[in-house]
């Protein structure tokens, strides 16, 4: 490539700038490269462009090079749990109250419930086009709300069978966390009342008291739509997790080790 006489002070036209891109692409032969560098050394405007381009190139490499290894531990945990491609049943929301319909009005009650369900589905599908766009809650926010409400569960299972059925209704897998001498399982909080998702819209929140201190357990499918992260954890708490069957259990605890999720077992 040649430049006109007096080129060292002349403004650059597109030719040398195009060659600069080819140079930066590493697409020049050694001979072309040497010629381009010789040209740049004798033309101040081109030299300036080349220096700037190389500085930008170096900075982008410094700032934008991906980590050599990415932490994909959640993926490994999910794959290791063996349920990656298992059928996931449709979520069945747990009941909010325990008031049974009156015998005489049972069928009317069922019909009304069905109508509400249909209207609800139609409303939901028309107003919430993208479920992933729902607001995301952090574990710390759920704990804050639970504390603000006096750490009182919204729903208490009457026995172990109802506990197992509650989890099974939601996730298709029966699971039991029984109270022990040091662990008091208090009951469920409704994560969906916050209008936001923790792991997904189906996350179950279990409240427990361990040696007098409050502990929350979050249950969802593994893999869930979202992975709870260390940044979600409030000061003084730890977030521990354990895959159990097809579920992922998280324990938000002030203790060093998990007390509640360790006691969880699959019951079918």
């Amino acid at each position, binding site marked *: 490539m040649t430049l006109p006489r007096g080129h060292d002070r002349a403004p650059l036209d597109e030719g040398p700038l195009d060659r600069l891109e080819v140079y930066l692409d590493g697409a020049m032969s050694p001979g072309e490269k040497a010629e381009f560098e010789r040209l740049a050394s004798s033309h101040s405007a081109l030299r300036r462009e080349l220096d700037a381009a190389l500085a930008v190139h170096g900075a*982008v490499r410094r700032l934008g090079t991906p980590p050599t290894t990415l932490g994909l531990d*959640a993926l490994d945990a999910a794959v290791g749990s063996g349920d990656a491609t298992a059928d996931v049943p449709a979520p069945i929301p747990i009941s909010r109250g325990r008031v049974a319909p009156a015998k005489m009005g049972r069928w009317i009650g069922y019909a009304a419930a069905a109508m509400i369900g249909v209207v609800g589905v139609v409303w939901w599908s028309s107003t919430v086009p993208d479920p992933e766009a729902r607001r995301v809650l952090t574990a710390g926010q759920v704990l804050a709300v639970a504390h603000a409400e006096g750490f009182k569960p919204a729903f208490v299972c009457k026995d172990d069978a109802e506990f197992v059925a509650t989890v099974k209704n939601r996730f298709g897998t029966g699971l039991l966390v029984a109270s022990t001498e040091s662990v008091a399982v208090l009951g469920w909080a409704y994560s969906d009342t916050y209008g936001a998702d923790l792991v997904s819209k189906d996350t179950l929140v279990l409240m427990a008291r361990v040696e007098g201190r409050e502990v929350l357990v979050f249950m969802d499918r593994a893999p869930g739509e979202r992975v709870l992260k260390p940044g979600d954890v409030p000061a003084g708490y730890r977030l521990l997790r*354990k895959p159990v069957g097809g579920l992922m259990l998280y324990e938000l605890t002030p203790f060093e080790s998990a007390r509640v999720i360790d006691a969880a077992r699959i019951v079918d």
Partner: protein
Amino acid sequence: MVETVAEKPGPLGDGSGHETAGPARSVLTGTEFAAKYRECSRVLWCIAAGVVNDRSLADDVVQEAAMIALGKLDQFDPSTNFTAWAGQVVRFTALNTARKCNRERMLAAAIRETAGGGFSAGRAENAGHPPSALDAEAFDDDVRAALNELDETARECLLMKTTLDMAYADIARILSIPEGTAMSHVHRARKAMRTRLLAQGYPGGPAR
């Protein structure tokens, strides 16, 4: 086995291939998916970083997208390019993350404004004074800002080309754009960045 989320322990998967016992919706098993995803994770990271323009957020996006893609594995057509498919999942996840972050930034800005706007005032005092000392940190900050002004696809192309030295044909395949478009994105992005930095007073970047 219980693991601490904060400490990010090693993989739990034993690679036993247990997932093959499940119903076969895809040619890929979960273990195979994980291996392929890991193989292309640096490219996926560039896509994520191109959208969110933040290193740690990009890490999170790649992890989160892995779980989403795993859940949608039955939608993967094995006759198509895995990286391109996973890249789409990463892209959507990154866009959602970027939207959430923008909302949070707006909220934080509103809170700062209510509290007196000290941060904004401090920045305003420094505005209009390009750094006289060409220290690498200040230069990197300006490069970050210049990167931020590129559009997402240009940033994705530039990161893949510059940091992974990928061929334009490969970038084009992964982003489902023509090869010439990938190339012009990179060329225009470079030019825009150096023009901006030269205008700010950097003759050739920081002295080394």
